[in-house]
């Protein structure tokens, strides 16, 4: 005789919870939505308002200043190719989403990471949550984002922030925990308060690691904003998405290559920032 176990209605529970959140906190979500949308539009307009060539010069200059001439030349070549392929505007839209998502993620991640480094209990609570955030297939975040924030860029940012935040938290925690015990002891021995210890010893010492985490966050954010085209985010992702729907591999690869160029540029730039800090 087979005993029948009822199926656990896990999906129903989650949906119920999400519905409840959507209806109860619609004021909050709508406020967040409006603020974020304004931010996106503002940054987008600002970047678009600049003549294309001047933005190119600015980015090249930034590369030169932070890294070296080689990166600057590479940046000019890559961006010129994007411009030539008529992908300049989608590229700007993608850049905007990445910048804003990264900013939000870092603003949340830094304090959480610091707190987790200093409190063993918080550390133990937060690590499984981070595992969950990172291993849950990224697409899944897109679904609840829509009832919260509607179709469009704000939902994309929401999903991107959740997906890209974990490395920034992890690296911040790791960086602070890696500060040699004797340096913390030295700060204690001279009578430093917790705040002084954090600001004068732990944070400066962990900065290279924190920067590595932020670099990771930027990379994850970029990959996610592209996927977020599925829920209506603008940018290079929507070019790829359109190419898939129309079965035009050429267009798809063009947009894809633009993403790669942007990714490499952002990666090299943040890495050189980190190396500069180190030396």
């Amino acid at each position: 005789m087979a005993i029948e176990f009822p199926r656990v209605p896990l999906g129903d529970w989650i949906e119920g919870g999400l519905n409840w959140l959507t209806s109860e906190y619609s004021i909050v979500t709508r406020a967040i939505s409006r603020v974020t949308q304004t931010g996106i539009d503002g940054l987008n307009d600002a970047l678009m308002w600049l003549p294309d060539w001047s933005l190119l010069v600015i980015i090249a200059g930034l590369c030169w200043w932070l890294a070296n001439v080689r990166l600057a030349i590479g940046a000019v070549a890559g961006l010129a190719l994007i411009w030539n392929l008529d992908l300049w505007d989608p590229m700007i839209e993608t850049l905007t989403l990445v910048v804003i998502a990264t900013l939000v993620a870092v603003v949340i991640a830094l304090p959480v990471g610091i707190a987790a480094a200093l409190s063993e209990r918080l550390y133990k609570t937060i690590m499984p949550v981070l595992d969950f955030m990172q291993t849950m297939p990224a697409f899944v975040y897109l679904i609840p984002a829509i009832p919260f924030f509607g179709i469009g860029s704000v939902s994309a940012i929401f999903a991107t922030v959740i997906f890209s935040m974990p490395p920034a938290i992890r690296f911040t925690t790791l960086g602070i925990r890696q500060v040699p015990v004797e340096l913390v002891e030295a700060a204690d021995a001279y009578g430093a308060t917790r705040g002084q210890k954090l600001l004068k010893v732990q944070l400066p010492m962990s900065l290279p690691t924190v920067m590595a985490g932020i670099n990771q966050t930027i990379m994850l954010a970029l990959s996610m904003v592209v996927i977020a085209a599925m829920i209506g985010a603008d940018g290079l992702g929507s070019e790829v998405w359109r190419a898939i729907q129309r079965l035009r591999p050429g267009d798809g690869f063009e947009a894809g290559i633009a993403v790669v160029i942007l990714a490499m540029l952002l990666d090299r730039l943040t890495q050189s920032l980190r190396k500069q800090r180190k030396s």
Partner: protein
Amino acid sequence: MSDNRNVKIRVRQLSKVFGNQPKKALELRDQGLKRPEILDKTGQTLGLSDINFDVYEGELLVIMGLSGSGKSTLIRCLNRLIEPTEGEIVIDGENIPSLKEKELLECRRRHFSMVFQNFALFPNRTVRQNAEFGLEIRGVDPAERRETAANALKQVGLEGWEDAYPNQLSGGMQQRVGLARALANDASVLLMDEAFSALDPLIRGDMQQELLELQHRMKKTTVFITHDLDEALSIGDRIVLLKDGEVVQIGTPEEILTKPADDYVRRFIEGVDKSRILSAESAMRKVRSTVRDTDGPRTALRKMRDHSLDSIYILDRERRLIGLIDADAASQALEEGKERVTDVMTQDFRKVVRAEPLHNLFAMFHENRFPIAVVDDNQVLQGVVVKGAVLDELAQAGER
């Protein structure tokens, strides 16, 4: 001698248990169990047990023990980097274990500067910024701390290196920065945790000498931790010897060498070059006879004959040493009809103070055949050291 000096830190019944049931461990300790048995029965490590000692104002106290003896725990209990389980640590009337968090910070800032074994310099700060650290924590204004730090760096001979980073300096120089950081802070006690152990032997010797010099000049109360007996003996005013978390002996280097408290200490001091530690005083004998400056050669000869001496020291009214006359010179003076011993006395002899290391006396015997005179600061004759006595003393110290 040291009993009438001011006590700076008083440590009483200090114990430290590592583990979550300290009470249980201490109960067993009170029943007479030792560290390994307590660890077996309760899983608790008895780090320190019933430690009692004083640190006097201005002295350099060395806490010495092998690894696992609890010396690092002990120095960290003093400023509560490690929480003591029980006992008192009183500094200027404040009992450190009972201080609240804020008072503790204040106490650390006012009383303790610390120098670490592996330097513990902040790699992202320049030498100057490292030296300023303690002052910065206290909120001293930038101009003043810059000046104080510059002064401290000058004291340790690092002028001109202010803007370098620690990784650009050698080990010895890095530890000088560590020392400057401690000196700039101007706390009342200097804690040095194996401060020179990571340095190579030559630099280490230099640093020891410099520390002694600084300590002599500034009279800063210093607690110095080391596992190296030679280091302890050569720099310590007094030594606290630890073994398995307990005090085995407290005393001056000379006391440790000449009156070891038990077999452990005796075995410990076997390998030490005692001639560097023992002083002239330990080999000094009473003078058998002397002559006054007003005596004649005849008296001198008679006294030498009576006490079977080859030479005799000449003193003035205040018993101050003014010269020496030997038997040949005395008989010649007698023949020539000289009236005073002072007419024929010689200055060709060696004199030392009581604290002169025995080690330095060997060379003197090589240059000069007369007994070495031991005098005090006023040149008053205290006694003499003869060649055989030095060897006797060393031989005996070796047996002890």
